[in-house]
């Protein structure tokens, strides 16, 4: 039992990130509504962020901000005490990118709606083929 539990603990994050990514990707491909697709896109991106953050986690380590005790001169900082800062850093960038994309996609949706009065992909396709 404890084996199973430890396996689950060890991999749960990775499994669920895959599931989340699949949900996002499915939403992106299969959904009909453009805004829904954008949501799927965002879920997809968050899944990746989840993946990275999971990589960076260390058990029994602190958040990547140095404690005042460690800032004293001559104290050797032990790497195992702090969570990997690099993944956080990378993901900051990724979040920013996803927000930018999200905002811009929303603006596009507004623009498309202005023009075609619909956001459904099949209706849009119909409108386009009519023209």
């Amino acid at each position: 039992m404890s084996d199973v539990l430890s396996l689950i603990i060890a991999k749960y994050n990775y499994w669920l990130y895959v599931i989340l990514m699949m949900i996002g990707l499915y939403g992106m491909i299969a959904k009909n509504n453009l805004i829904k697709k954008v949501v799927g896109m965002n879920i997809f991106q968050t899944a990746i962020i989840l993946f990275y953050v999971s990589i960076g986690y260390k058990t029994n380590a602190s958040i990547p901000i140095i404690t005042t005790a460690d800032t004293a001169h001559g104290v050797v900082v032990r790497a195992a005490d702090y969570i990997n800062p690099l993944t956080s850093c990378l993901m900051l960038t990724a979040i920013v990118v996803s927000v930018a994309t999200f905002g811009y996609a929303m603006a596009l949706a507004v623009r498309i709606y202005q023009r075609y009065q619909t956001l459904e992909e099949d209706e849009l396709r119909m409108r386009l083929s009519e023209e």
Partner: protein
Amino acid sequence: MENYPALIVVAPFITGLLAGLFVWIEKRLSYPIVLTGLFVSALSAIQVLIRVIGSGPIQYKLGGWSPPIGIEYRIDLLNAMVLCLVSGVAFLNLIASYKSALKEIGDRASSYFTVYNLFITGLLGVTITGDLFNLYVLIEITSLTSYAQVAMGDRDRGPLASLNYIFIGVIGASFYLLGVGYLYMYTGSLNMADVAVLIKGSQGSSTVLTAFILCILGIWIKMALFPFHVWLPNAYTYSPVIFSRVVAPLMTKVMVYIMIRLMITVFGYDYIFNTLHLSEAVVWLATIAVLAGGVMALAQKNLKKMLTYIIVSEIGYMVGGAWMGNQLGMTGAILHIFNDALMTFALFLAVGNMVYRIEKVDITDLKGLFGKMPWTMGGFVLAAFSIIGVPPTCGFFSKWYLILGALEKGAYHFAAALIVSSLICAVLFFKVFEICFFESGSHGHEHSSHGPAVIEEAPVSMLVISGLVSLSLIVAGCYSGTIVNTIILPFLK
């Protein structure tokens, strides 16, 4: 100065932002500022190329941090060539497309130049960087700027094309990011050279395999290799001329460059071809891509769209060459990066000139264009010949290497596909030429109620660049031996 590598990327970046600032203060300044930036960038790129040819790869540490810790630029011959190409094309295009941008984008043009420069910055950065994650960020800036530019073209179709582009672009970039994540998981590093060292001897690792597949898949999506090409035609067709002129030559080519970089620098030849044995399958895929692109181009009525499908086909060339697994194929692929960029540039310059005068470029609208815009058509014809692969133009020579590579590997299907694709291109372009050559404008007069009655030659600024680039196709073709010997072969060794 030691800082040429930084200048290549930073000059267009800063000037782009400055232009963005000056839009709100003094609109007229933004264009000269942007132009200066690109000029500086192009000059620096040439400097760097000369230096690299002279004294080998250059390493530039950003922030002064040495590689695995900080981000580095690593410029070798391949980089330097692509850098020159990108900055040169961008600079020329900005001159050539100024009027067209004013016409199409109107009062927004001055803000538009900012986006343009950022786009170029992205492309240059993608080419120059030696860091896997930095590459992702730069891919994203490239993508985001291109989404923005695509949406600015056709007022009706542009936004939709842009949104679809976003979806696929995000999938591509995210796949790449995931791949980088898996690599990071395996190695703990993000620097390309460092990863390459750490990854050695990881033959059976599922993590590395997944990372490899994800990275390559992501890049393929971004470069619009055949099954993933759906976004490309609409995005390029409905974008403004100034953008399609620069994105068509550069975007896919830079992505191919990234693919080659990943293959050679990061994962290594040995891993891909000796451990995974993927060459066969990918070359088949490329074969299909080459043919499919051509066939789909045949079905198009809009000239711009037709050309975009040709780009899809050209991507097949480069991917096939790169995955051939021998030196000749890779030489062909790299040479084709250069040549294809030039010829698509020439082609789109000419098409841009047409669009400037006729607005809609359905093939049937081109009647009698040889008489009305002879110089533009001259450029167009040269570029088309290059695409078809008529000898003195450069398109022939890269095809030459590609076919040789295919023969050496025994991939006769790929060689055949190249030949067939040449024929298809010939059919395509001569279809266009026929219309331009034969149909005199008399039909135009019948329907003179709509459409401009008098079509005349495009403005001189547009023409000169178009003509020069078209002529450079021949020059590049003639000197392709030099390029191969001074840049590509030393690089591959």
